[in-house]
């Protein structure tokens, strides 16, 4: 703690990558929260101006229906971030629950849960999510749940390991000795102390979730047209790649920059706070 006070967190020029990532994330967040500030209607089509190259009037050009690609990319931030956050939310919530359960149970239940985490993580994320969506049908909700379920084992395993450490800690054994109830023990003593690594893990996980969501939307499994989702935009523009690269390359850049920024920022925070839960 004292060390952190002596060296306050400042953006140093030694880390231009981190600075750029933070700026980009701030812009993306602004776009997601308040898209109207940056861009006009993403659904306004203009059949007389289709597939026009980037210009002063249309910074990112127009797509096959004459919609402004910049407007769509800005509005797409909301879809992508919301889907990513919701998916990570589900994964973290379920992961913590199951991880705690595994960490606190007796051998047999722990084994069963751990093996099912192993089984889940043996499948590639996209395959598992596709399987889920094949059953439930496409749409934003299935996308969120599918990615949430597919990324859950990462969090569950970390929480399980943390729980093992914490349950043997002195304050827990003492609380048991004082006769604390099981619920109180878990909620007051174990849970707060296992959550430490989660925020940074979730931040990096968010990048992964956004990438997966864009990939699944590209395949038509996510928000349906005309929603301005980044993956769906790349997919819609791919038929025109030869004559209008901007319609799919620029939304693709948005995905790339978001994921890289989240990873860079997440790794930086991870390094800074490593070992300090």
């Amino acid at each position, binding site marked *: 703690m004292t060390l952190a006070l002596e060296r306050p967190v400042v953006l140093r020029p030694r880390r231009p990558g981190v600075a750029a990532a933070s700026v980009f994330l701030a812009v993306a967040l602004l776009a997601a929260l308040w898209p109207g500030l940056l861009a006009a209607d993403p*659904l*306004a*089509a203009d*059949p*007389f101006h*289709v*597939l026009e190259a980037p210009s002063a009037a249309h910074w990112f050009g127009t797509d*096959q*229906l*004459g*919609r402004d690609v910049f407007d769509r990319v800005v509005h797409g931030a909301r879809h992508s971030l919301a889907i990513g956050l919701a998916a990570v939310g589900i994964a973290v919530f379920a992961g913590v629950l199951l991880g705690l359960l595994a960490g606190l149970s007796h051998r047999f239940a722990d084994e069963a849960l751990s093996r099912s985490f192993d089984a889940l993580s043996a499948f590639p994320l996209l395959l598992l999510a596709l399987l889920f969506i094949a059953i439930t049908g496409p749409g934003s909700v299935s996308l969120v749940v599918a990615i949430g379920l597919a990324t859950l084992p990462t969090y569950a395993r970390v929480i399980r390991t943390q729980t093992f450490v914490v349950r043997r800690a002195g304050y827990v054994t003492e609380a048991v000795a004082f006769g604390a109830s099981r619920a109180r023990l878990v909620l007051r003593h174990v849970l707060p102390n296992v959550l430490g690594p989660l925020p940074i893990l979730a931040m990096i996980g968010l990048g992964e979730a956004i990438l997966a969501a864009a990939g699944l939307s590209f395949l*038509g499994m996510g928000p*349906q*047209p*005309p929603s301005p989702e980044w993956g769906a935009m790349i997919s*819609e523009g*791919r*038929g*025109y*790649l*030869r*004559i209008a690269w901007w319609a799919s390359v620029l939304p693709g850049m948005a995905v790339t920059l978001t994921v890289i920024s989240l990873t860079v920022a997440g790794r930086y925070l991870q390094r800074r706070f490593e070992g300090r839960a």
Partner: protein
Amino acid sequence: MIRRTAALVILALALAACGNGGDDPEGAGSPQDGGSLTWGVETEPITFNPHLYAQAKARLLVWNTFEGLLTHDQRGGVVPWLATGYEAAKDGLSYTFKLREGVKFSDGTPLDAAAVKANIDQIRRPGYNPALLAVQLKNLKDVEVVDPLTVRYVLTRPDVLILDFIAAPQGALVSPASLETAKNLKAGGPDLAGTGPFLLDRYTAGQEVHFTRNPGYWGERPAHLNEITYRFLKEPSVRVGALTSGQVQVIEGVPATDQQLIEADPRLSLTRGLNAGTAYTYYLNASRAPFDDVRVRQAFREALDVDAVLNAVYRGTATRAWSVVGPTSPFYDKSLEKTYSGDPAKANSLLDRAGWTQRNADGFRTKDGKRLTVRLVQSAPFVRDRRDVLAQAVQAAVKQSAGIDLEVSLVDQGTATKALEDNEYEVFDNSRLDTDTGVALNLLLHSGGAINRTRVKDPAQDKLLDDAQATGDATKRTELYRQLQQRVVGEQALVLPLYAPADQIGAARTVGGVGFEPTAGVPVSAYGIWLGK
């Protein structure tokens, strides 16, 4: 009236017609035998059984393995093919066919009158192809075997559509032996034997279908090519890329954005042909709100500037349609042109009068708190020519000009069929490739039609269709279909015709004999195609 045709002359004519169209004398030279060709096609067939044929884009595959008693000439008429000639009875109640001698199916079964009868018996089995029974075979009483090489179709009442059926893919003849033994009759495949110039020997779902030359073909010569592979390349850009990089020698379905590229390439040629049949049309479901109100149907049409969206999506290569009947059909009613659509002010006043006066936060019209939503369910195997993109352009246009919410979903065939059967749709999109447009009109607009998606049950409309089916007099038929179009397209506004479907073939200049089928206007089968040097 007796029509007997000098079969050999006509056969020669038809053969010549098959190889007509995109021939490029400079590139491919004169026909030569041998070689293998790969062709990139847009649509994977849902079946290889010709009786159940349903996709216009799969028609070129049918004729490789199967043939019918009749085929089409260049002017929309029919000429003998596996028959040597036919006679119509004076009362129009029967047609007698003389079969060609010595024709064998590829499994060795001879083509005789009993084989023809076996095919019709199969088609008439309940649950096999109900749509066909409801229209083309509605008036077929029986098929009689007169002698081994003479067969007679007997009708309950005069019906001109029977000849069109006999010349259509559904009327193509399958070896009766293989009809019995096929493992999956409805899916078809290598175990269904036909009389055609090629044998289907390998089908890999999702990838390709492969044909080899039928060495025992009955015609005056076997096919030129040793083998031909059709690769299913659903993505337009992938097809074009495969052609320009030489992975395939022919593609069909060239998107508007790439037609110039192919035309400019000295190694490639591009040919276009308009299809026969009906225009690509939105059929409006008049059985439920909001399209039960003719004013809302009219408003939907006025809200859309069809020319603008066609130009945006097809970059000036599409032919605007004004009626359900395609512009190449002899029944096309030209007087409907420029009589409707593209007037947003009129659309808005019609909707106001129909009670859709409120607007919600998204700008959509509402009435009693209900949004003005109409649903279009597109079945993925039937989407061609970027019809999904067109739907999105229409969606944006009707929202912007009149506050109509067109909800578009692109789903698998099962889901689409269910939505249509359950009456959970307001818009149905369709174009049909029928060489006689009457067939399509009976299916689409008759109260008993298998795809009567407007759900209109109107005795007057039915009578026009029935009368037109029963008369062989072309002038009378044209007049009846004109009245029908005036009613359906004009007064009732049951349909929104969009464009006349066309095919484009892009081919390497070394490929000869590629072109369009007479009358139907779709790419030809592989029989007349050859590979030059």
